[in-house]
């Protein structure tokens, strides 16, 4: 997907429950609908722009882009160097970029592990990873990742040896951190697409490792 790719399908309002499904709307959803309706009515916002932005958040941005970046870095050492030196320019080569996308890439190696948190709210590299998972926005993750990261990692099933140098990045400015995971052994002959399929969101936040299926 390139930066100028357009979705022509009408995603408008599909975000609210469709009339056919008859799920009872929660009070919050009703308030959200009322807010949109009142703002549209007053001409403060227009539906087409809201549709475009929401669709970008949900479909145009996402961890499939992050996985492509990682797979490219694993198979092209010159790209990897550019990615670590200037993440924005490197991901733009793959047509990736946008709001909340001022990215710095930090590299995991056998001796160093990086993980990312936003203690102040939920800052996250949208173009590469899409919307953050619920746990990333939770009080438990935000409060503990900077104080007891190994305990948090264990809850994700990641056990780090005491000798591994652990670096926790707190996204307090406009820089968005992205973890380049360590390439697992046994993947030497794999293609970029095969590699990309191994890489999940947690590995690029640093709460997971990449392993063979």
């Amino acid at each position, binding site marked *: 997907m390139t930066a*100028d790719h357009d979705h022509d399908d009408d995603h408008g*309002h599909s*975000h*609210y429950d469709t*009339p056919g499904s*008859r799920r009872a*709307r929660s009070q*919050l*959803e009703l*308030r*959200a*609908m009322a*807010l*949109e*309706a009142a*703002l*549209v*009515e007053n*001409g403060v*916002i*227009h*539906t*087409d*722009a809201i549709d*475009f*932005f929401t669709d970008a958040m*949900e479909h145009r941005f996402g961890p499939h882009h992050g996985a492509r970046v990682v797979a490219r870095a694993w198979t092209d050492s010159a790209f990897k160097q550019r990615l670590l030196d200037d993440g924005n320019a490197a991901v*733009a080569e793959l047509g990736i*970029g*946008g*709001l909340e*996308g*001022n990215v*710095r890439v930090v590299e995991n190696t056998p001796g160093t592990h990086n993980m990312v948190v936003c*203690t102040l709210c*939920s800052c996250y590299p949208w173009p590469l990873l899409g*919307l953050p998972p*619920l*746990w990333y926005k*939770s009080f*438990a993750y*935000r*409060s*503990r*990742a900077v*104080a007891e*990261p*190994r*305990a948090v990692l264990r*809850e*994700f099933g990641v056990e780090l040896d*005491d000798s591994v*140098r652990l*670096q926790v*990045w*707190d996204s307090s*400015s*406009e*820089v968005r951190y992205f973890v380049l995971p360590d390439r697992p052994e046994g993947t030497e002959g794999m293609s970029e697409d095969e590699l990309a399929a191994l890489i999940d969101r947690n590995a690029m936040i640093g*709460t997971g490792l990449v392993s063979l299926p």
Partner: protein
Amino acid sequence: MGGMAGFGSVDVAAVESGHDGWEARAQVVALVSGGMSRFGIEQIPPDKYLNSTYAERWLICAETKLAGNGKVDTASLARWKELFESNQDLLPPRTEDAEGLAKMKESVLTTPLMQQVHDPQFEVGDRVRVRRMRPEPHNRCPRFVRGAIGEVERVPGSDPLPDVSNRSGRVEPVYTVRFESVDLWGDQTDSGEPPFDLLIDLWQSYLEAA
């Protein structure tokens, strides 16, 4: 909330809320209408903040701000909510604006870069101490690093100071500062947490030479 205790373990299986559709849309509505900012979120009283969901915080923030600046009125919010509640088939009205859509595409698809640094007070390798402060509600200097000494790891660029007190829009260099965990939390090795590094971005006026 870095370092606060008592929130329990991380629910690692909680990825999507199950109603991400409208929640994502509500965030966009709040952002685009100017109803949302981290500052606005932090105006929510702490007891209410801790007792609300992520989406609810955005909504509270947007409703409060937009009613406050006259972009909506609470009577019309209540009227629409009643209409949606009583008629499941009803959806918000639709409008289009080609010019606004073009601007939206431009802003969503453009990566916001930081400004070049001019005349930085600190360099990579400098020891810096985070100032003690008791700021107005919003700033970007988490409490758990205040008073601690760290080392400048990188100078990623300059950006407007996001503090609510910065009404002039002053731009300052931002520093990535590396702290050792023992300087923030003491030695936790015995409780299974060997030393680690914490890296965080801090605006120049949050720092002093150490």
